[in-house]
């Protein structure tokens, strides 16, 4: 298909951003539910939490897999540099994701207490480690990683664990836990629902503290991640939207409008990812300390022909994906009821 003078590289920068934002909004809540899974003690309650995400977590994770595939196809140099550079971090992430995936499936297949406890721990630990590592990866991309003149990573595993990336790791975990707790409120009722409502302010406060520290640290120590906003003050409206959306979450929770709180949390994520993308653009991997070696939407990209083919695929595929994602969420709407087919 011919897309005329459309800037395909920028379009794909945005599309990759959309895929990872979709991943954060969707898998974010089931990772969050996993992170707080062990806070419940009763088997029945744990089953309800598992079944709250049961029909959808797999589809949510596909956003990550498709995001990875799209990155490979649209920006192969970025895919190659990041994944080989963050080798051990990604191996750990994969192991964590595997554990959590099978734990969900295996847990309720046997009645023994030790069996269920083992997979509960696997599910929760896998969720927490995945959230942390995703945040650490984002933190490194924001901070910048050392690249050489070939665009290869020139650091080590431990150089990825700087204070700023770790801070982002914790903030991501806090964000997902809050997001997951709101989702759990929507899907539960009765005693469990009341208990989660009791916890939720702690999650919100924990996230807001992390968010404030991250914002401060970014403005002070990562000036390039605020440069565009300094140059075009109207972009501050996105930051404002982000802050208002976050501020709206406790308000909606207070009025027991859980759905609106969830939407606010999603809006906050979209605004955060939007800011992240705006400040990164046109870079995909910022090289620090040698900015000249950065990988951007041009030196990291596939040919215009491939980008055009992929855009055609996206135009065919994405509406279909959205249609059945929405139908699945619609079919499984409402509070969780355990039945014979449940986990």
């Amino acid at each position, binding site marked *: 298909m011919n897309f005329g003078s459309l800037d395909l590289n920028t379009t794909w920068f945005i599309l990759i951003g959309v895929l990872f934002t979709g991943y954060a909004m969707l898998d974010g809540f089931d990772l969050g539910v996993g992170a707080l899974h062990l806070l419940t003690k009763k088997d029945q309650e744990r089953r309800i939490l598992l079944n709250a995400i049961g029909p959808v977590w797999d*589809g949510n994770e*596909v956003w990550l897999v498709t995001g990875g595939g799209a990155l490979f196809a*649209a920006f192969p140099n970025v895919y190659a540099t990041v994944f080989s550079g963050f080798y051990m971090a990604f191996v750990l992430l994969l192991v964590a994701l*595997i554990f959590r995936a099978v734990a969900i499936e295996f847990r309720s297949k046997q009645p023994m207490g030790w069996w269920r406890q083992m997979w509960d721990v696997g599910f929760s630990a896998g969720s927490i480690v995945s959230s942390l590592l995703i945040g650490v990866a984002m933190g490194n991309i924001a901070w910048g990683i050392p690249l050489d003149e*070939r665009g290869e990573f020139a650091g080590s595993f431990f150089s990825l664990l700087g204070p700023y990336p770790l801070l982002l790791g914790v903030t991501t975990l806090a964000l997902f836990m809050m997001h997951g707790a709101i989702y759990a409120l929507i899907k539960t009722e009765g005693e469990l629902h009341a208990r989660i409502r009791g916890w939720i302010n702690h999650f919100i406060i924990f996230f807001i503290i992390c968010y404030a520290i991250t914002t401060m640290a970014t403005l002070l120590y990562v000036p390039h991640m605020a440069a565009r906003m300094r140059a075009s003050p109207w972009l501050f409206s996105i930051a404002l939207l982000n802050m208002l959306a976050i501020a709206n979450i406790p308000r909606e929770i207070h009025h027991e409008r859980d759905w609106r709180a969830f939407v606010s949390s999603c809006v906050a994520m979209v605004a955060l990812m939007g800011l992240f993308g705006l400040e990164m653009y046109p870079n995909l991997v910022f090289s620090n300390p040698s900015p000249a070696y950065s990988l951007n939407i041009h030196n990291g990209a596939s040919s215009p022909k491939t980008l055009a083919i*992929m855009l055609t695929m996206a135009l065919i595929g994405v509406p279909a994906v959205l249609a059945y994602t929405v139908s699945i969420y619609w079919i499984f709407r409402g509070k969780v009821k355990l039945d014979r087919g449940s986990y």
Partner: protein
Amino acid sequence: MYNRFQAMDVLILSRLQFALTAGIHYLYPPLSIGLGVLLVIMEGLWLATGKAVYHQMARFWTKVFALTFAVGVATGIVMEFEFGTNWAAYSRYVGDVFGSALAAEGIFAFFLEAGFLAVLLFGWERVGRKTHYLATWMVCLGAHFSAVWIVVANSWMQTPAGFHIVGEGMKARAEITDYWAMVFNPSSMDRLFHTLCGAWQAGAYLVVSVSAWYLLKGRHEEFARSSLRAGLAVGLAASLLQLVSGHVSAREVARHQPAKLAAFEGLYETRAQAPLTLFGWVDEKEEKVAGPQIPGLLSFLAHDDTGKPVTGLREAAPRPEDRPPVNFTFQLFHLMVAAGVWMIVISVLGCFYLWRGSLFGKRWLLWLLVFSVLGPQIANQAGWFAAEVGRQPWIVQGLLRTSEGLSAVVRAKSVVAAIILFGVVYLLLFAVFVYLLNDKIRHGPDDADLTPAGKLALPERRPA
């Protein structure tokens, strides 16, 4: 010198890591694809006839499907990222071409599968019967689409087409010139057919095996007889189609990857009336193969003509460093063929006695059918390894060597750590999978499924 050893170690270790993760992953998706077809058949029979046993079958095999699917997804995520972690140079080189097939798999297959899987597993009492059946179809289709794209991507590595090379030296990379020529590269459709037949066999013989075991133990007999019929029918069809597909694939490999075909058969000298070795051993030093042979059969397989010459290794890859490991490839290929022939034999026997009406009394045959579940697994693993090892030393046939595809920044010790981690996790996963599958089989189908209630109750069933 140290650097060369280091590079060699990383090469061997990275190949080992890929072989381990891909090999174990490949136990599960074929089962999902094959079981997907059987689920469509079983649930279709239920909707068409209203017989409760078909409902019971659909419910039971859906649970088995869920188990294989979950482990398939969990081990599959690794594959999506392993190209980048271990094969960064390869990823840069082929991303423009290979990446788009991988992305297509995500957008066209995975979303479809994962979305409708929810309805298939949890939707029995939430949606109408027709909607549920639609979901079963979609999951089955999604599993097939995923095979389409991954086999297209892999086939491009075997028989690259529809691209040109841009840039030189370290900067060289493949770029798409003709998308459809890339998708329909010379081997993709033949290999897709071959892979799907293998997957259908995997699903079919699992159903056959479990059902035969129930019959031997005298348990769940009505369920077992109906399942066995469905499984044997699909198994026979897939096994016979595999014979056709094997021949078509051999013809294609002979034309496009003569060195691989020569390695399959340990054929060094180009010769007319080339023989097919039934089993044997290749002496790579003496460049000879020992074992009983059928004259002319390889020429027939490769060219439909016993008289035509088949290219030997000395001509296809004159320099030894351009050849795959011959004996290893030979043994894997022969193992696959043997397993394929064995599956034809037992499915023909099974169907023959089924037609005669005496299958359920033949305990020796039922025992053979119990172990038939191993056949497709052996054939799928051996065939996949033969196809990939037979392409060596190339990662993309004729364009890029496997040794040139590695990640520049990944050290041997990291790969060792990854192999140990993945190895432990995968072994654990496999053990748990077998344990749960065994448990599910011992538990058997649920008798409550014979009297569907609520939304699933049959309108024509009236109390007597």
